[in-house]
């Protein structure tokens, strides 16, 4: 009997420990203030809100964005703040859940009284905020790749308080890589492989197919996978068999690892195109990196001088290398700073107007002349950095803008 009790206690303790380890907790999202609060009243600070996945399945990306914002806030405060006021950044963990996101955003608007909110790169999370942002009227800056997160496709009008910052949307990304590959390589016949359960993957692939055909090239076959699929060998053989010269594959890093490993294990040596997640640490995760050849686009060249300052600060603060998502977060905060300065106040409505109309030729990490398009609430003519992998060696080709 004693033994049974001990075992029961042991199992309960292990289960509780495992639950604690898996996520922050099951209670309400916990706020984290990342800058020290001032003793002065609210008039002396500008409150910025954050909503990101800090503990669930996209937490690697969410934490990177959040840390980019934190570092930008720290820099801005050290340089005197915005309009002479200190910036206080308060972030909530949404655990990559749409309802948690809405709850956190509402709390930031009504309890914390923030002036603007910086959120996730997940399209589904940003899309969850479309309706509530129209009610609360606090601008939202995110990095969703799905154009529907900032634009009403039916009316062609942007959602007033939703903004895509720091990277092109999925359609623009497909346009950039389609034009680059068409102009700079001999590749003509594409096999498209996408994850049909991923909004970004679908939107990007659909756009690429249209652009690629418009450029006079051929799409020989389209194959799909689902989020939890493990075995891509059948699709790989079909793509090879269809006479494709390359595989266009805007899928996640996990899926890219599976694809590249299985292609290598089966002697299928087709190059890959358009897989943004082939940036670091992709090559370190596969068994045979020397079998990988690819062209892909990235928000920034993480080895360039341009991001060296962020890299150093990030390493010092968090003990690891910054990623492109940190660049997104960092730039988002500086775009917001420019908007607040242009607005001349921390009034959310004035910031919204400034974000829409006054973000022009801004020098940030992803561009020297970053401009917000008022018609789409997305960056105007923003290019991307083209990267190339040759037999497992990653190199940066340079910044490229498509027509």
């Amino acid at each position: 009997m004693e033994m049974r009790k001990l075992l029961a206690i042991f199992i309960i303790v292990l289960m509780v420990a495992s639950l604690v380890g898996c996520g922050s907790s099951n209670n309400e999202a916990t706020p984290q203030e990342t800058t020290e609060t001032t003793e002065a009243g609210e008039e002396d600070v500008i409150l910025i809100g954050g909503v990101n996945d800090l503990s669930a399945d996209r937490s690697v990306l969410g934490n990177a964005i959040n840390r980019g914002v934190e570092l930008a806030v720290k820099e801005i405060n050290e340089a005197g703040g915005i309009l002479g006021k200190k910036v206080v950044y308060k972030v909530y963990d949404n655990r990559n859940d749409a309802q948690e996101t809405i709850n956190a955003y509402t709390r930031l608007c009504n309890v914390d009284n923030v002036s603007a909110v910086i959120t996730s790169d997940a399209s589904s999370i940003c899309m969850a905020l479309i309706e509530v942002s129209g009610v609360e009227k606090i601008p939202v800056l995110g990095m969703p790749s799905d154009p529907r997160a900032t634009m009403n496709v039916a009316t062609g009008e942007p959602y007033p308080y939703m903004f895509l910052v720091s990277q092109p949307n999925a359609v623009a990304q497909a346009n950039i890589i389609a034009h680059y590959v068409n102009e700079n390589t001999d590749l003509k016949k594409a096999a498209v492989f996408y994850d049909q359960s991923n909004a970004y993957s679908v939107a990007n692939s659909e756009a690429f197919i249209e652009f690629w055909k418009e450029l006079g090239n051929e799409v020989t076959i389209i194959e799909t996978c689902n989020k939890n699929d493990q075995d891509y060998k059948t699709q790989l053989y079909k793509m090879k068999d269809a006479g494709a010269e390359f595989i266009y594959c805007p899928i996640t890093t996990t899926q890219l690892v599976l694809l590249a490993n299985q292609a290598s294990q089966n002697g299928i040596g087709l190059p890959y195109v358009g897989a943004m997640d082939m940036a670091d640490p992709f090559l370190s995760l596969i068994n045979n990196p020397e079998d990988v050849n690819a062209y892909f686009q990235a928000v920034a060249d993480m080895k360039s001088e341009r991001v060296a300052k962020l890299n150093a600060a990030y390493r010092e603060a968090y003990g690891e290398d910054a990623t492109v998502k940190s660049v997104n977060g960092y730039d988002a905060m500086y775009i917001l700073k420019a908007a607040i300065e242009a607005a001349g106040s921390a009034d959310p409505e004035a910031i919204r107007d400034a974000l829409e109309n006054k973000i022009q030729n801004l020098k940030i990490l992803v561009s020297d002349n970053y401009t917000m398009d008022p018609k789409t609430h997305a960056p105007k003519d923003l290019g991307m950095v083209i990267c190339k992998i040759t037999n497992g060696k990653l190199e940066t080709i340079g910044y490229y803008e498509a027509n």
Partner: protein
Amino acid sequence: MPAISLYYRLPALHSYKRLKGESHMYYIQLLINGISLGSVYSVIAIGFTLIFSILKFSNFSHGGVMVVSAYFGYVLSTKLNLGFFPTLLMVSVFGALVAVVVQYIGFDRIRKSDGNVMLLFVSSATLGTLLQNIIVITFSSTYYSYPKFFTTSFVKIGNFTVGVTDLMMLVFSTICIVVLMYVLYKTRLGISIRALSMDANTTQLMGINASFVIAVTFMISGCLAGVAGMFLGISYSLYPQLNALVFKGMIASILGGLGNISGALYGGLLLGVAEVFLTNFVGASLMPVFTFLFSIIFLLVRPQGISGKFTLEKV
């Protein structure tokens, strides 16, 4: 927004076009791929079936043992730089030990107190989740890859390409199954296991130590989980949700005839081949639907499974 044309959205049309103009070589290649995938399903299914045949419950902790063993192999191969064979050996031993610990923690007391079999089932699901969460805590949710074990990635046999990993998977799965069959049918231990699976009470009255036999059965099952986990880790990549593949093992064991070892072997192979061909003909999006349809139709036609024998499940 541009849209993918209807032609591309219907993979079956694609496949039909291909069927008319192509040689049978392509389909033989698919068959090879299906058998190699099915061999792993078979190993999972046999481990799953072994426990089912004796304790008569679906042991979902099998997936957890598989994942923990796969990560153990990753640590051995990357931190200690162990080669393929030593890693495989250590992983199978580790899988066996974990399975025995799981048996003592989760099932032994319930079984001895003649507890409801439902409790065994709940305990197995809980322990499976617990093992998965221990991995999440220790390694986070990110993914890892085994190092490159073999100098060549694939071999050419005539016009066919076979991945070295797939080939190894097939060879070792076959070895595991042959050894297991030998143990089950040619040794005293095997006779005890089979006797226990038929009638536990009578077997104990005959003087066989049921607790010992059950512990050994769990060891064998854990050993198979370790082998399957390591091959899955090499073929795909390592992440905590890898244990979801235990469901494939469960489907394979049902197709083969619940609780029947040789049936689980055939069920795994049938499932692997069916999945590969369905992916080819109907596409990855519809493959899961057709796989379940195929399973339902198969069981309607042959409810006793491939083997023709099955053990009644209590849960």
